[in-house]
């Protein structure tokens, strides 16, 4: 395998799933967000978002805090330090691959 391909193989599979990648991207850009905001931004159903958040929480990439504001429950999600680092690493690897493709490194037969 070429180094570029190896970079692809070592991508974090937890983040690489499209729905989870969307969630991670939003949470990376926003200091913290609640369940409803994530649901609207990522256009996911409640069940879908719940299961993906559970996977991210299991990987210790996201912390979920349940709180109340008046009668309204807020489920607040944030990236952990691990989550930030993992996301940055993922972006870095993807940029290496994208850069190599753009430079035509992978086009030589």
């Amino acid at each position, binding site marked *: 395998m070429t180094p570029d391909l190896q970079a692809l193989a070592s991508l974090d599979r937890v983040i690489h799933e499209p729905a989870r990648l969307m969630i991670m991207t939003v949470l990376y850009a926003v*200091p913290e967000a609640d369940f409803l905001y994530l649901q609207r931004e990522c256009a996911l159903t409640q069940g879908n978002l719940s299961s993906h958040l559970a996977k991210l929480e299991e990987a210790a990439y996201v*912390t979920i805090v349940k709180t109340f504001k008046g009668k309204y429950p807020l489920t607040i999600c944030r990236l952990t330090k691990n989550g930030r680092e993992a996301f940055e690493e993922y972006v870095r690897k993807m940029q290496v691959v994208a850069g190599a493709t753009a430079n035509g490194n992978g086009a030589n037969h």
Partner: protein
Amino acid sequence: MANSPSPIFLAEKRSWSYWFADGLPQLLIGVSAILFGFYFISMTAPASTALVVLSFVAFGAYLLIQIRAPQILEWLKSRITYPRTGYAASPYFATKKSVYCDANLNLTPVQDPNAPAIAEIKRVRRARNLRLSRTYILMALASLGLWFVHAPWICTLTGIVMGIILWIGTRADKSVSLLVILGFPVVGFSVGALQLAPHVRVGSFILGVGLLFLLDGLVSLLLYLRRNPVASVPVK
């Protein structure tokens, strides 16, 4: 594809716009400017005891809003915005501690400031802060004309110049609506047409701008409430 904005950039930009979507920040700016404008005018008008008391009350309320703006906004948004379209911490207050989460969650210290995603977020926030600071400074400079040039047309000119500065400064993220931008020259013209004394017209201009933001905030809030009825309770 090479020039299309990255999803991180778009997510950041959307969260910034989301902060203004409900019209509450504009309402707060409007109320704050009205209070300050009123204080300014009443301080220069012939004094009666009631007016002096009222002007100090207005100034106190203005100071309170200035000091407690984030908390007031959070309080309003937690009752109006979050139940409808969800909660997202403002990127504007990104460096401050969250209202809802405690500090023990092992959060966010940046490990590698050269990481591409961090660099991008930093670049976007730095550019926005720079743009906004430049806009505030230029608007303050433009307002000097109201103090030093004693001709009615200066109000209209100041309004036009301020509207253009505001448009240039905020067009990238559209945080100020066209209603406000186009309203500046109208406020300037109106204050000029009233033929007010120089010291009163500055206060009147501020008051007019406050009314403009208040109107914009009310329109935005009504549209937001119409588009977003209260959501069902989220289930996790």
